[in-house]
């Protein structure tokens, strides 16, 4: 018989690997009897969806931008490496 800790661990693992039949059966049996773990299972699924959505949101977040200083630094690095020719980044003579 699984306890809540073992159940929650299996629920987490079920998001990363296929469970064995034995694991699935004992999981289902526990979830039938335990509201707290059943809620945990739902919340794990929600967390997974939310995390995937969060990535999309973060990548579209216009407030996050390279600032001017960083932009100039990168632009300079790109120009320098272009001058030194391809395949020799970091090997050219330093001024």
């Amino acid at each position, binding site marked *: 018989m699984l*306890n*809540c*800790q*073992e159940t*929650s*661990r299996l629920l*987490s*693992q079920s*998001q*990363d*690997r296929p469970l064995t039949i034995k694991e699935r059966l004992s999981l289902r049996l526990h979830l039938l009897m335990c509201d*707290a*773990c059943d*809620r*945990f299972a*739902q*919340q*794990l699924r*929600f*967390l*997974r*969806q*939310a*995390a*995937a*959505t*969060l*990535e*999309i*949101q*973060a*990548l*579209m*977040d216009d407030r*996050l*931008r*390279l600032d001017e200083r*960083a*932009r100039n*630094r*990168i*632009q300079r*690095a*790109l120009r320098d*490496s*272009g001058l030194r020719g*391809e*395949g020799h*980044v970091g090997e050219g003579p330093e001024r």
Partner: protein
Amino acid sequence: MEAILSIVVRWSPPLAIPYNGFAIFCGILFPRHLSHNLAVFLPTRNAMNPSPPPDERQPSAPETWLDAYGDYLYRYALLQVRNETLAEDLVQETLLAALKCHEGFNGRASERTWLTGILKHKILDQLRRQYREVPLGDEAGAACAEEDFGMDDFFTARGQWAAKPLSWNDPAKATENALFWEVLNLCIERLAPKQRQLFVLRELHGSSNEEICKDMGISMTNAGVMLYRARLSLRQCLELNWFGQTREKETG
């Protein structure tokens, strides 16, 4: 809405095959399975921009990359490293690497997808270095963690919930609130660094456990334990900081 998005994000079409050719050309040692990772980015682009303009498929001048993709790459790096300077450095490294071998870009995927693939490679490189410096421990260490070392925050000695998960009031509605996403972001930020890195790779970028373990050089058991802890912490954090307070928020 988020159900659809998550399906779209997890959708991995076999479109990334050309990257193998590119990787060989560049002489960058892309692990072969990375080409599978790259597929993850295509749906993201599709979700944001259903029909990319045709010119996106033509290689553009390297000088334009920073303006065109700099912010996007920066955001992507920031998700993982959570440090502005580090993220800026990663963008720079990525563009320099791209400049060195941009002829390998065959125009079959968007330039942004190609650049993101290089960035992801750089991020994994950096994480791997970090993990090498501070070993996570071998199987014995993982087994120790498996014994639920440090789990007493969540469970009693008899394996019962220390604080039972409460019923959450309408999670779908929470996702319509911009503040909810800030809270989730803060909760992720507050995870222990390794848990956070694994969680972001696994759940935000949609990498498989096999990929993560291979790239980080950690055991599946170890990764599983850390993801488990991350999920327990995040669930608790959301309950304490969002779902426990929904009622006050709505009346306020």
